[in-house]
């Protein structure tokens, strides 16, 4: 298949009618479309895919993309409602024109309703094919199942890369499914199934004969028992397969939803962690507040603390003063007692001599002085002061209680500041991811659950398939016994034998075909990988019997870990090999394939493209391809080169470079 011409009408940013010539010859089969982001490169790729298959998917490769999203907005506003794509292509020497179009209408912004979608396929010089047959014809030229090996973008590379990196069992299943897609094994499976149906019908018919003759009842009974049992297992198998298919669809749906929020995932989790921190912080704030409130309630006197403490100190000072005064009064009284005793006895109590030795008049004067001093000294009771002090004593710990209050308030302030900062960051994140209400961790949990269920379902399927095969073999064995009976018609017997042989051939071919083509894909992947990789420690790629895709080192060991760059190249090599092995000739259309590759790998891929003699269409932006630096790598194989220029945010045009 080779694309010859693409015509667009009101498609993507291409307003009105546009025609792009795509015919190339094998000596220069590369067509380059150069354009910056948002110019319409992906719209051109989607135009080809939609024209061929009438369906589109988002860049995640899973989510259906309504074609209404591809209608040019300026045209819609101008009331120019028809849109469509026409693809002229050749296949096996015949030229075809495929046209798909529709009418768009919009009653509100962002909601485009598409109607009257029609598709025509006309071989040049021939009659149009019936519309109902067109999908089958296109599928015969390049099957929808393998289309994304040929029409792919950078996102698909990422998706394949992720799948190849997944845990062993999932990765093996993926590799096997891709290889079988490329080889058309589903067709072989259908053939085997058809043969089984024929075999069943013949055996049932022969059994009818035996039953009519009322001979070999036991054999007939056994056949019917086993057939019934087989039918039951097949019904279970069909139910299980339906559930498995449903699980696959659900997993794809959840993966699609998650891939859409990939960019905001980190922010989402940061916000979630912050929200948990804020909640903890709020609890801490609540606890500190409660603690301060409890302190305030228990120490109800706190607002008057310094007044009370001052009173306490005053009371203590009063006690000291009262005690001093008491001591002074005691001293005075003691002295008075001595002087009175001296005067009364006429003998000095200190020295024992007659008072007359001393001056009696002086003693009387002293006594009078002492009595005056005693009368003048304060008589406050120390007990009153002590009672006052005791009453005030509980307030003596005011300083330490106040300190606790201040410390807790400082803690409160710090915690509030921390929480405020986190709230601010949460608001920032919420603005960044505004409008996105996806609950990512719920999605991830569900996905993990679904994958676990899928794994269990796979095991159950495998067990049931084994049981079915054993029963099938048993039914076939009994069928052969029935066929051996003389009552059976010779023609039916021969037919039964022929179908048996056909089944055997298909079964052997099936396994042989699968093995040989797996080897072929492995070899093609290995060759391409070695051609593309810039890392010299690798010696190739293998796909073993269990469909484990591994990079091999120079000592023949399968490496469990390879670099991210090597993984990207492995992915590219695997897709290239699948394309190479799946059909004889088809155009390879790549949209922005080099975005994540380093210079060495990008150059290696361009050099590889230069070896093609079949059509290659590359959509590139200036960051991944510069004519003056990279054109030489394509070794003169550029047959056509276009630039996609932007006229306005909603309009672009394709020009020959």
């Amino acid at each position, binding site marked *: 298949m080779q694309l010859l011409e693409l015509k667009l009408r009101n498609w993507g940013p291409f307003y009105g009618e546009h025609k792009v010539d795509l015919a190339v010859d094998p000596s220069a089969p590369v067509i380059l479309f150069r354009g910056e982001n948002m110019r319409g490169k992906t719209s051109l790729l989607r135009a080809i895919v939609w024209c061929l298959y009438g369906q589109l998917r988002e860049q995640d490769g899973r989510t259906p993309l309504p074609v209404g999203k591809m209608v040019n907005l300026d045209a819609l506003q101008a009331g120019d409602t028809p849109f469509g794509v026409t693809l002229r292509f050749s296949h096996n020497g015949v030229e075809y024109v495929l046209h798909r179009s529709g009418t768009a209408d919009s009653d509100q912004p962002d909601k485009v309703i598409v109607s009257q979608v029609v598709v025509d396929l006309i071989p040049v010089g021939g009659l149009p094919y019936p519309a109902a047959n067109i999908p089958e014809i296109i599928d015969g030229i390049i099957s929808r199942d393998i289309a994304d090996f040929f029409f792919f973008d950078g996102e698909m590379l990422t998706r394949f890369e992720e799948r190849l990196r997944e845990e062993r069992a999932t990765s093996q299943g993926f590799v096997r499914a891709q290889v079988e897609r490329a080889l058309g094994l589903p067709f072989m499976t259908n053939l085997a199934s058809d043969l089984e149906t024929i075999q069943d019908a013949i055996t049932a018919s022969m059994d009818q004969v035996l039953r009519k003759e009322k001979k070999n009842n036991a054999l007939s009974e056994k056949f019917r028992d086993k057939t019934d049992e087989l039918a039951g297992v097949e019904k279970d198998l069909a139910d299980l397969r339906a559930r498995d298919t449903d699980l696959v669809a659900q997993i794809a749906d959840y993966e699609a939803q998650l891939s859409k929020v990939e960019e905001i995932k980190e922010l989402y989790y940061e916000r979630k962690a912050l929200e948990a921190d804020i909640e903890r912080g709020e609890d801490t704030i609540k606890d500190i507040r409660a603690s301060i409130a409890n302190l*305030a*309630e228990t120490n109800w006197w706190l607002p008057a603390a310094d007044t009370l403490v001052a009173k306490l100190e005053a009371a203590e000072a009063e006690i000291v003063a009262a005690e001093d005064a008491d001591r002074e009064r005691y001293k005075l009284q003691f002295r008075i007692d001595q002087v009175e005793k001296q005067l009364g006895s006429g003998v000095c109590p200190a020295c024992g001599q007659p008072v007359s030795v001393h001056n009696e008049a002086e003693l009387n004067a002293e006594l009078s002085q002492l009595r005056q001093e005693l009368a003048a000294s304060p008589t406050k009771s120390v007990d009153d002061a002590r009672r006052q002090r005791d009453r005030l004593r509980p307030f003596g710990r005011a300083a330490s209680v106040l300190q606790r209050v201040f410390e807790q*308030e400082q803690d409160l302030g710090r915690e509030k500041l921390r929480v405020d900062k986190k709230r601010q960051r949460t608001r920032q994140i919420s603005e960044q991811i505004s409008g996105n209400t996806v609950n990512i961790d719920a999605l991830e949990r569900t996905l993990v659950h679904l994958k676990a269920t899928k794994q269990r379902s796979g095991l159950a399927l495998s067990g049931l398939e084994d049981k079915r095969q054993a029963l099938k073999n048993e039914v076939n064995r009994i069928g052969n016994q029935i066929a051996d009976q003389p009552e059976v018609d010779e023609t039916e017997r021969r037919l039964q034998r022929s179908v048996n042989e056909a089944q055997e051939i298909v079964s052997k071919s099936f396994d042989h075909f699968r093995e040989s083509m797996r080897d072929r894909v492995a070899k093609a992947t290995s060759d391409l990988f070695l051609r593309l990789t810039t890392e010299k420690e690798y010696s190739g790629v293998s796909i073993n019997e269990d469909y484990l895709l591994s990079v091999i080192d120079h000592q023949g060991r399968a490496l469990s870990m390879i670099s991210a760059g090597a993984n990207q190249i492995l992915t590219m090599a695997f897709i290239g090999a699948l394309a190479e092995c799946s059909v004889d000739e088809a155009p390879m259309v790549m949209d922005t394939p080099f975005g994540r590759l380093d210079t060495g790998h990008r150059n290696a891929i361009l050099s590889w493209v230069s070896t093609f003699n079949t059509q290659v269409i590359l959509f590139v932006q200036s960051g991944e391809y510069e004519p003056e630096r990279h054109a030489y790598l394509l070794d003169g194989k550029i047959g056509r080169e276009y630039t996609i220029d932007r006229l306005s945010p909603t309009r672009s045009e394709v020009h020959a470079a």
Partner: protein
Amino acid sequence: MTVNDSAEQAVDSDKVTIGPSAANKDVLDLLVTQGHFNSSLAAFQAAAMLAIRKDLEASSAPASAGTMWNRGSVNRQILDFLAWYMPTTMPARVLEQLGNAGTAYIAEKVKTGGYRFSEIFDLPHMAVE
């Protein structure tokens, strides 16, 4: 009155129920809402203690708008304290007056919001020995 006198001995002519003024009630509710106190009575009692410290004139306090708490709900230690400290034979009545005076004193800060407990009650910084 001696320091041994207690509220118990002086309740006959005292108030049985007390309450804040209408304006003060809102302030007390705010103190609870802002998390400074567990109950408006605790806030009212603290305000009364502030009134003592600030020497606020109890008799000029806004009048109670009605009853809110029974005397039995009031912290017994406070009534005892007031009976001894003031001294008074009607500690509940004094508490009501002081509480209203103190609450009116802090009303503006509480209504403005954003103040700490220590700022509202102007708690003193005291050196810990």
